[in-house]
């Protein structure tokens, strides 16, 4: 891929006017590799079809886009410091709200369960977490949490069974937990130094105690233990558990990544006794962690794939059988566990919106 130095020749003048750095060429080839890493191209596009393209009119990079519980509203956030909410029913897009209040790029948004009303949390580089709420059709800032000393990178609502609890992970290394106590009041608990030089992601464990659908006698009050996972710049995934005294304690360290853990996603419970967590990292690796018995707390990692670029985001489908992996090369791939326990790429999400440059297509043809 890399040309030897002797054959290399581009006049300086050309070099100076050439907008495309050499590394860009290398990068396109990297993309090729990703293409071939994925199974049957024929399947592509059949499995995934764009049904709605929302022009957000954000003025800068979008950093997150999340649908609400019903899949009818879309919240987006951007480096332009705004949070927007769209009604996207029936393939349409109606801007419901353009929320201003952050003073820096907004990294993530998270919808609360609708049983608590229409509530959206957002976190930003401005070190703040804002909880927005719709009242009488109008979205307004309901609460502002300024308890972090650095960028707040991730917000995640606890399962609705616990009440309104928001976990926030920050670059100051701390994780804070906001619990709504009524009357507009939020109680804050903070885990200091959870991840040295920064926590990048938080994700709650599902409320259903694994296996409870199968063996729990009905009528018995379920014994929920609140847990969540976090990933940080110390390359670690940590599992946290609420003790009986209400304090949060580090329960487990999961070590496999060799660089920043960019995202963690605890899979939704589908009634099986196994707990599953997906993690992705700056090192390009995506791991699937499974634990058959939460009490024994032995987690075993399985490498889903090693990508050639940062992997920014992992997201489980509602039925927890498909994992969407978003890589730094602007590529989204879908993965599914095969019968023999191997993770297979089942689809490349290619929006066909010009994201794949012509050179890639050419390169592909050349390869074939």
């Amino acid at each position, binding site marked *: 891929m890399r040309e030897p130095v002797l054959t290399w020749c581009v006049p300086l003048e050309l070099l100076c006017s050439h907008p495309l750095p050499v590394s860009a060429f290398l990068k396109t080839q990297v993309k090729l590799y990703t293409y071939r890493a994925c199974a049957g191209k024929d399947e592509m596009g059949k499995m995934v079809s764009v049904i709605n393209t929302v022009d957000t009119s954000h003025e800068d990079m979008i*950093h997150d886009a999340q649908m609400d519980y019903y899949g009818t509203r879309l919240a987006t956030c*951007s480096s332009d410091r705004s949070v927007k909410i769209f009604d996207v029913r029936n393939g349409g897009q109606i801007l419901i709200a353009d929320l201003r209040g952050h003073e820096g790029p907004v990294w993530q948004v998270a919808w609360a369960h609708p049983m608590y009303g229409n509530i959206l949390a957002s976190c930003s580089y401005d070190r703040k977490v804002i909880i927005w709420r719709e009242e009488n059709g109008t979205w307004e800032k309901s609460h502002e949490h300024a308890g972090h000393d*650095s960028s707040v990178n991730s917000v995640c609502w606890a399962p609705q069974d616990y009440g309104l609890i928001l976990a926030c992970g920050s670059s100051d290394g701390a994780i804070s937990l906001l619990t709504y106590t009524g009357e507009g009041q939020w109680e804050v608990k903070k885990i*200091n130094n959870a991840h040295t030089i920064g926590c990048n992601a938080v994700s709650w464990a599902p409320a259903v105690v694994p296996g409870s659908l199968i063996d729990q006698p009905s*009528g018995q009050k379920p014994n929920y233990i609140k847990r969540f996972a976090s990933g940080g710049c110390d390359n670690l995934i940590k599992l946290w558990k609420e003790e009986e005294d209400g304090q949060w304690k580090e329960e487990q360290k999961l070590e496999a990544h060799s660089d920043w853990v960019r995202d963690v996603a605890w899979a939704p419970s589908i009634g099986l006794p196994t707990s599953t967590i997906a993690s992705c990292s700056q090192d390009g690796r995506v791991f699937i962690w499974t634990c058959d018995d939460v009490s024994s707390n032995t987690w075993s990692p399985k490498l889903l794939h090693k990508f050639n670029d940062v992997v920014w985001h992992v997201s489980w489908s509602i039925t927890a059988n498909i994992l969407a992996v978003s890589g730094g090369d602007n590529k989204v791939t879908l993965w599914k566990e095969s019968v023999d326990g191997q993770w297979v790429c089942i689809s490349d999400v290619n929006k066909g919106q010009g994201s794949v440059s012509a050179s890639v297509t050419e390169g592909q043809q050349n390869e074939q």
Partner: protein
Amino acid sequence: MKLKEVDRTAMQAWSPAQNHPIYLATGTSAQQLDATFSTNASLEIFELDLSDPSLDMKSCATFSSSHRYHKLIWGPYKMDSKGDVSGVLIAGGENGNIILYDPSKIIAGDKEVVIAQNDKHTGPVRALDVNIFQTNLVASGANESEIYIWDLNNFATPMTPGAKTQPPEDISCIAWNRQVQHILASASPSGRATVWDLRKNEPIIKVSDHSNRMHCSGLAWHPDVATQMVLASEDDRLPVIQMWDLRFASSPLRVLENHARGILAIAWSMADPELLLSCGKDAKILCSNPNTGEVLYELPTNTQWCFDIQWCPRNPAVLSAASFDGRISVYSIMGGSTDGLRQKQVDKLSSSFGNLDPFGTGQPLPPLQIPQQTAQHSIVLPLKKPPKWIRRPVGASFSFGGKLVTFENVRMPSHQGAEQQQQQHHVFISQVVTEKEFLSRSDQLQQAVQSQGFISYCQKKIDASQTEFEKNVWSFLKVNFEDDSRGKYLELLGYRKEDLGKKHIKEEKEESEFLPSSGGTFNISVSGDIDGLITQALLTGNFESAVDLCLHDNRMADAIILAIAGGQELLARTQKKYFAKSQSKITRLITAVVMKNWKEIVESCDLKNWREALAAVLTYAKPDEFSALCDLLGTRLENEGDSLLQTQACLCYICAGNVEKLVACWTKAQDGSHPLSLQDLIEKVVILRKAVQLTQAMDTSTVGVLLAAKMSQYANLLAAQGSIAAALAFLPDNTNQPNIMQLRDRLCRAQGEPVAGHESPKIPYEEQQLPKGRPGPVAGHHQMPRVQTQQYYPHVRIAPTVTTWSNKTPTALPSHPPAACASDTQGENPPPPGFIMHGNVNPNAAGQLPTSPGHMHTQVPPYPQPQPYQPAQPYPFGTGGSAMYRPQQPVAPPTSNAYPNTPYISSASSYTGQSQLYAAQHQASSPTSSPATSFPPPPSSGASFQHGGPGAPPSSSAYALPPGTTGPQNGWNDPPALNRVPKKKKMPENFMPPVPITSPIMNPLGDPQSQMLQQQPSAPVPLSSQSSFPQPHLPGGQHFHGIQQPLGQTGMPPSFSKPNIEGAPGAPIGNTFQHVQSLPTKKITKKPIPDEHLILKTTFEDLIQRCLSSATDPQTKRKLDDASKRLEFLYDKLREQTLSPTITSGLHNIARSIETRNYSEGLTMHTHIVSTSNFSETSAFMPVLKVVLTQANKLGV
């Protein structure tokens, strides 16, 4: 924020980006002595372990060196992709030497760590850089304008980039271009920078600002833009950083003047070109954006100067700085609080006193309180602008319904503004479909259900079956839809009636050949032997003795024959004795056949003979006990059999029509996690449910826990594939299972149903339950609040107003299925409401019992309606919480004589009558309140359930809606509380009994309910629905929901879910058998139908007859037969005159339309009646009537 520090006066080099873990190499600095004035030198390697919160760096290796260093770099040369420690450490020494070390050997403690050494330079080597494209190329710079290019593959002979610059000068910095691999730049303290083109082997450009004050201490190429570089000056008179673009080399592009004194070092972040570090003699470490000049960050440092600064190549937020006070510090530029760190130091201090437990007491030291005065300084703010590496450029998140939301920010190849404008900020919503086969099979199933083409569907399944068992299951299922299902079952089990008949005849023939000819005369002996005694007994007509004698003499045949003559009683006794004596193999079978004791067979047969047992049951069992027996057999197979037999239990359950057990059994045997295996199960379940509906004329819409779980899992899968409408169709219609109701709501909303009351999130579930396309409220018809919301708001508390309305809605029975969604696809299903038994425990009602004087009935809790009439009734009608129900209350004035003011003082027996009165009263607009004998306890209890029961619904509605509002009330209609009514239809076919209500437990009908009712007050177990919703720690519920309930109460009705489940018709887990057995009830004489209504009966019966005569399909015939039976309910109601005038007049209208053969008009009227009438009043017969009308219409009779 400072992360780590090492006390060394040293040059530093980070391990290359590929390396993991991250190492920092330090080499004793040649420039100054440290505090010890030691002249020893060493090369050390430390590991950066961020998971260790202490400030210490872990030392990995120390190598004593004879050299001191001016420059140290770590190149990734020959580094393998695994990222093991490797590469090469390149050091620039004092005496013109360049030394290559092998870091892996240093770490390994090897003595021979030097790879190579070359002394070609004449002076100290201050500048070194590795080519990032060809890591074997290293450039070095020293005094006298010496620049060499070293090829690590051929280290002995360096190259030069061109002729030495004149005049000779020291080379202080050297740097390879970051974009073009043959471009190199060098700079010297004298102020000039030279750019070399290795291809041309000469300097191509010289950069100088003519001020002569630029004493270059730093040089760095732009990470992205090939033609840009910065130069830093250490001259205090010109402490600037100049940014140059080679295309405009006459003057600097930009000058950064942020330092007050000379700059000693700079470092440009490879991860974000907008971050340039610089440290100077003003003791500052700054991070600026070289593209704008803005200072983004100032590191908190002490007052010491830093002479070297480096970004960590792997961790973009980390940098290290070496200061003259003999320390290398590692910082993060992401800010953060150092509190935690300080705490850790304190902890560490404590731990040096014996691991927090100096005296082994088991008690850790008490935590040290840290003085707070430094709090202000402990917070270090992050960069003013977010670094590039935390700006997430891409994302994909799943959402409900198999949707995938993706966005991307197309990377600009460069940072030129013009292209950025083209950047579009789109978000894509995609549908993900991964289970095509699953979807198509689900589709087929749905089509089969809609078209009622069950037989062909089953046949297809049989044909496609892979295994014998699968084939069997589908064959059994298919039989359900055919004539003579029992006979077919027998055939499937391998028993053909005809075959048997043939065999039998053959045997008979054989036997007859041996029959001795009878005839001639015989003499009657009365001798003393047995014969004689028998004769005597016979002669005296003493059959009993005769039989005894015969038995005694083992003359069984004689005994039996005599016993037959001796009458039933004797025969029975004789049979018993015979069986007691006889021990042959088939005795027990014969016993069972004769005694009609099938339970015996089923319970005690060898499980290997399950087929035979099932065959026997199929042949002999009465319809009413049939399914229970099949059930029992299945249960035995499941519990006692081996794995093979366990699966066979499924067949028994299919015969029994027991959906719930089929599910349980199937689930046990199969791995249900795969969508297709779930599809396998659901296909069977759906078909079986349909079969049960058809054959047993029973409403199967109520589902048990397991089935509900499976169905919702199925619906979830469908939804996950985007088939939301299908998911809704398969979701059980009416169940109070919270997960199902939530899913239903979610599906409805996901479908994009217009959501009214969008702004009232407190009652998010009410809209979808609004009935659609129905006329506005008609007098006498109103809808009940739903219970669902209660599950949805588990933390809601029971409103004190509950009791006030409990009497108010007897008429508010829903007359249509609550499913306003796409769930109505199940054809002519009778509306599947019913009542929910759980609701009947109104905690308030129960709580108030003591206030009801003389109240002695255990079953009172189910009848909370009298409470409003208690004097203690806190809310008079029309005020307070009750107000909101007023509009729904047509028969509101409870002045009815049916309600004596103190009804409950009376004894148990009088209670019976009263409850019937209540029952009558519940027949909303019934003019006469005569007891509804034809439909005794169920209606009354049913009715009572609706108000009492809920407990929750009223409460939820009470606070979900602010008192006094009238708007959203409709939302609370259709309580699932009524869901159970239809199941009653099954039993009362010939069931008239005014069973004593005083003993509800003995009452076969009221059985499940009343048992349940009774246990409830006494055994308040948390209800299961609640279990999934523990009281959230959420007083905030108030805030967000407008809940006005006191928070103190636990507020949930005592458990009802369990009995509820058991009472479900689909899931008679424990009590079915008993239930069925107790069915036979003696008939009572019926009153005549009033003359004016007789016409209804004749018309309807006539119509059915006509249909029957023209119908050819056995299924239809069966349906019609069944319909004619079930219409008895109607006739009974007519006899009792319990139907409201609107209904009777509506029925007359239908009858008239039947006479004119205008069936569609009849159907319209039917719909009208159903939609405007009280459900419990009409549920028993209206659906049947619809079936008849539909059939008539279809057949055109």
